[in-house]
């Protein structure tokens, strides 16, 4: 499939998955009026993580902004998601080139996946960016550093759940080399 078409399709599916399903699920690990904060796993940065290697930074920034704004339009948080996604779009190239053994230009026509990066580097790459995204987003959303424990708890819980969902996505949608006869 054409790489543009594929990514546009993935954009739509991930945004709809985020706003129609994940935003509706109330996740809390034990229920108690003043106990654990309610949180949402924000999986949509996965779209940015899976864009092709050789994509220039300006294109990453623009698609990150578009992604953030579309999620914002659904959740009435004008600018908050966009702010966080633009930051990780800016850092993505640096993180990737730090983690990969070869130059990014040598991976022409490929996109980051567990196959060409290996499980461990891919998880480090995605966890790092997701943690930054969630930390920035929850900081802007709460905008209150007096309650920093609440903020960190929310970030950790949301990151953990997001990473679980990303691993499930990778297991489901990574094409296997050896097709079974």
């Amino acid at each position, binding site marked *: 499939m054409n790489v543009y078409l594929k990514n546009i399709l993935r954009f739509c599916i991930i945004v*709809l998955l985020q*706003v*129609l399903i994940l*935003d*509706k699920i*109330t*996740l809390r690990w034990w*229920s108690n*009026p*003043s*106990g654990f*904060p*309610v*949180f*949402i796993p924000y999986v949509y940065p996965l779209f940015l993580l899976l864009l092709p290697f050789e994509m220039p*930074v*300006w294109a990453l*920034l*623009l698609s990150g*902004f578009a992604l*953030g*704004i579309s999620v*914002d*339009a*659904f*959740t*009435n*948080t*004008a*600018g*908050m998601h*966009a*702010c966080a996604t*633009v*930051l990780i779009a*800016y850092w993505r190239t640096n993180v990737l080139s730090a983690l990969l053994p070869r130059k990014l230009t040598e991976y022409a026509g490929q996109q980051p996946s567990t196959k060409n990066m290996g499980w461990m580097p891919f998880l480090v790459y995605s966890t790092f960016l997701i943690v930054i995204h969630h930390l920035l987003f929850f900081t*802007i*959303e*709460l905008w209150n550093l007096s309650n920093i424990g609440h903020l960190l708890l929310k970030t950790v819980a949301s990151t953990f759940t997001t990473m679980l969902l990303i691993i499930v996505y990778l297991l489901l949608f990574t094409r296997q080399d050896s097709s079974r006869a």
Partner: protein
Amino acid sequence: MRNFIFFIRRFFNLLLFLALEVVCIVMIQRTETMQGNDIVSSANAVSGLVYKKQNDVVYYFGLRKMNDSLQNENARLRQLVEQYKSLDTLSDSMVFSKTQIGDTAKHIVRFSEYVYRNARVINNSTNATDNYITINRGTAHGIYKNMAVLSGTGVVGRVEHVSRNFASILSVLSAKQRVSARLKNGAYGLVIWEGNSHKVLTMIDVPQQVNVKKGDSVFTSNYSLYFPPDVLIGTVIKTEQVKKNAMQHIYIRSSTDFYNLQYVYVVENKMSEEKKQLEDSSAKKQ
């Protein structure tokens, strides 16, 4: 000039990044100052339509619960009607807010201060810091900003963004919203949401000497600019003394089930403009 172009080409990515972040911060700033941003909100045509399509599908799953709540509301309203029936309206002036509008020659008298319009909830959130509800009514149906929104059982919120066919409501479950409230025995306070459970609200600024019991009802007060008075907010769960300022925190179980909201009433206060104008003009003089 050449150097300038060279500079831009060299730092193009950084400049683009900074420009986009500034756009985001301006947008966040605009929503924080309550001016609202109608384009990037769930009241816009695209997200409103997506939420409407989704609601058409999941609507049927909540019908049983909705029937029960309508039944409860009917029972409550019937009871109210019975109370008014036994009232002698000739000797008692129960008809309030009698105002004359229009030409004095015609003497049009309108008795009701509030107009209720019903609306269906097409999107709902309870787990963000500021929760919004989208409804399938907009300016085409006479909905405007700052109208109060009630459910059959209690308060819901206030209209914040409107488009032609949709409106998004800032729910009481928000750090941005405070509702002026009144206890059964007449003590006033403010109801806020501390951001934990969608069932628990907090009432602050109640003096410690006010005696509050578990199970007492909390209503909206008549000080509120948007909400009609005497609408149930919830019932008291527990109280907590705050040593610092001789006030008490009262935890309230909200009477509206925000998680299963299906239909709401949008309330237009015909007097709010006039009241606000008067209050503003007297504030200016000071």
